[in-house]
């Protein structure tokens, strides 16, 4: 009798655990994104994965163009050695400005311009400040 109970529990765990695990795995498969810095990406030969991926870099000074007619933002994302033009349509965080560290998520368009779906800026000055 006891073995029957254990078998039942084991079976339950396998079924439920397996189900959940599979579900989580599937979700992961569709939601992951490579995370590159601009320099790494350039060094890797600018090979674009099928899905959207993330790029981290700094907004190059003087490269920000705000296209109000099309509600589009264009700028150059710069690393230490490489840089990449970016186009973004969407909400721009308030603290987006030149020389800010940002992370964009999107795809590389054929023309070599990165089309960003998401733009995240590093929260500034709360914990780390460069005191001038």
């Amino acid at each position, binding site marked *: 009798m006891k073995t029957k109970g254990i078998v039942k529990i084991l079976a339950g765990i396998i079924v439920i655990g397996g189900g959940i695990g599979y579900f989580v795995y599937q979700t992961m498969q569709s*939601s992951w994104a490579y995370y590159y810095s601009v320099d790494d990406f350039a060094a890797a030969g600018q090979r674009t994965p099928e899905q959207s991926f993330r790029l981290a870099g700094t907004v190059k000074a003087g490269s920000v163009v705000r296209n109000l007619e099309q*509600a589009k933002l264009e700028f150059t994302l710069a690393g230490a050695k490489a840089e990449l033009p970016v186009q973004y349509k*969407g*909400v721009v965080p308030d603290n987006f400005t030149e020389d800010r560290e940002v992370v964009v998520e999107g795809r590389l368009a054929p023309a070599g311009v990165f089309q960003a779906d998401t733009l995240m800026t590093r929260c500034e000055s*709360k914990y780390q*400040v460069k005191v001038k």
Partner: protein
Amino acid sequence: MGELGQFALRLGLFLSGYAILVDLLGFWRNRSELLRSGRNATMGSLLCLTVATVALWVLLVRSDFSISYVTEHTSLKLPLVYKLTALWAGASGSLLLWLWLQTGFVVLAFSKSGEGYERFSGSARAAANLVAVFFFLVLIFDKDPFGLSVTTPRDGAGLNPLLQHPAMALHPPTLFVGYAAFAIPYAWTFAALKRVDPKQSLLLFERARNWSLLAWGFLTIGIALGAWWAYEELGWGGYWAWDPVENSSLIPWLTATALLHCGRTFRAGSRIATWFMVLAVLTFSLCIFGTFLTRYGLVSSVHAFPEPGLGILFLVLLIHIWVIAGILFLYRRLRGKSDPVKQGAGMRFIVWNNWLLVLLAFVILVGTLFPFLSGLVSSRQISLKSEYFTKIAAPGGLVLLLLLGICPYLLRHGFNRSWRTFGAVFVGVAAMLVWVLAGKLAIAYFVVCGFVGLNLAADFVQRYTRRRTDGGAERLSGSLRWYGARVVHVGVLLTFVGIAGSGGFDIEKQLALRPGERAQIGDFELAYDDLKADHGPNFTAITAAVSVYKGAERIDLLSPSVAFYAQSGKRTSEVDVRRTLAGDLYLALTEVDNASKLINLTVYIKPLINWIWIGNILMVVGTGLVIAALGMVSDNQTERSNQIGETQQTNPSHNGVAGGQPTHGDTGNPLYGVKGWLKVFVVVNMYIGPVLFAIQTIMGFVGFAMLAEDYPGIVVVGLIEAAVRIFFVVKWIKIAGRLRDIAPGVVQEAKKWLLITLAWNVLSTPLVFMSGMDAEDLMVGAIKGLFTSIVGFAIWYSYFNVSKRVKATYPDWNK
């Protein structure tokens, strides 16, 4: 001042380390003088921490820029209130705050003297001081709050205007109160594990449980404040981004929820008791881990602020905790009884609940750490988009919600043939179908929410009818606890309603508009009227006037704005929101061209989102009710625990229970006893009053500080009033305690102090007028206050004079 702070920290480290040694030695050898020394050392450590915290505050208020912490987080022009809240703006200050609060809580929770308590408290204190030692080491050698600036600048860096918001000011301390309070159940667990006899584990269990409730409540407030701020201030229409920093507060919250549910009853040796202990240690270590995660840049995030340092110390601490916990658990297992204690049949639902919550927490944790983990196994870092979290959390939340609806019923009645059991199965299946067929999880949510709402309503109705038929034989505390828990569940339900509505049915549009142009979104039509510019001292604010039409009728005018700060080149935007219970119409002005008056607007419609905040408030209110209810019963439990304690053999120690043989009144009289309104009076003055006072003081603080620029006198008035009120609060706590313990002469004392309190309230009314503020504005408030104090006095003074219960309980009431 800085050196004083540093010295205080070092002394605190020494005292904590010493306390661990004496407490453990005292526990092992059963020497009460060692244990008392440990207790005193811990109090000494608290004193040192108080000195350090006050020192840092003084430095911040004084704007002493020779200290780098002050330079980094404040500036000369910063309003006073934000100079004070800057204490927790940075890593070192917040760690100091955490440790200070935690040591304070430990002293409060584990200083009870009396048979058996001393040994227990000693080992609990040792566990807490272990953590304290590590925190001290970090504070002294890594993140020194009193470190000097390289050069003393003339002005500090100031606080990001985005963070100068009341919600953001209160968000860190509420979280830290929560984190610090979780140290109590953790320390209790370590102490309980050491006692082999299961009965001993009951000692102080109620305390551990009550503290975990308090901690959970504060953690909830903290998370809610953060979400609210994000929605209000960041302009992206969202409140949660599954960022690692956010997740590191959510993950312990989930395990803490499981912890709460394990605390309902305690049968030493049962499986639920083991769950409670494991969850207590787990929750606390997740709090520590979360801090480690966000401060040491394990995972890159736009919120993580990697500061290189001795992050390894946190890891070492966690390893210590888990190794010791592992040993203790094993020890208990080997030496304890082999048959597990029978627990109620309903407990399995709590166990399901626990598993689900822990699983959810684990999955979120893995997702958060994914970039780090993937970096270990491959050359590239992989991060998971926020979709991962939503896709996992949403269904998980749905199952939890369903359990929330049905389990309280099942706990009591088991799987019987009721509309509830069948309904749960039916609704579960229906929700799944809806999700698969309609593709919208939000609809499935509404289905489940409806069912849960029905369940909760039925609970309330059944309870009410039962009370009427039973003739109201229930104690106030028992039903208050039940109602409080239900209110929390209602709050959770409403929060989910809000999340489903705003998440599943929201609309977002990017608009480019010229003056006079209109745009349609949802049921609304927006007409962009005009642009207005305001010039301030260091900024220019551009406001767009947008009229909102429903059909042909103009129902609202919204004014989103952007402010440009010329000097720093920064910009901030203020969203404008039309709030209704049905949803929000949220406008953010993202781009402005002054010449052509062309604007870019981002518009969101967020249905039902306000129910999230309402739900959160209810969750906290419900928690407050439960804590109050538990505070009421703790007196009886104290006596029961004392009996257990008496069987212990310790060196003769003085019996700390107040009043060995109090002079009781007529014990035969059915009215005898601290019950009814008398009990209400005691509870309000001992527990609720101080909490309200603390909240009022903080809010008053904020209010005063905002006014301080214009009316500096108000600071002085405020400080005087606060000081005197602290005195009164403490006095009333003492009197209430003596009322509860039926001490001699307490009724006269109470009446006397009611008079004195009234006198102070009346005499202090004109004080606020001396601050220089406009008398008309103050008049209403002053009259209200005066009226309240007079009425309150009249009620309670008469009560003590005419109440039969008072006469029955206190024999010397008329002396």
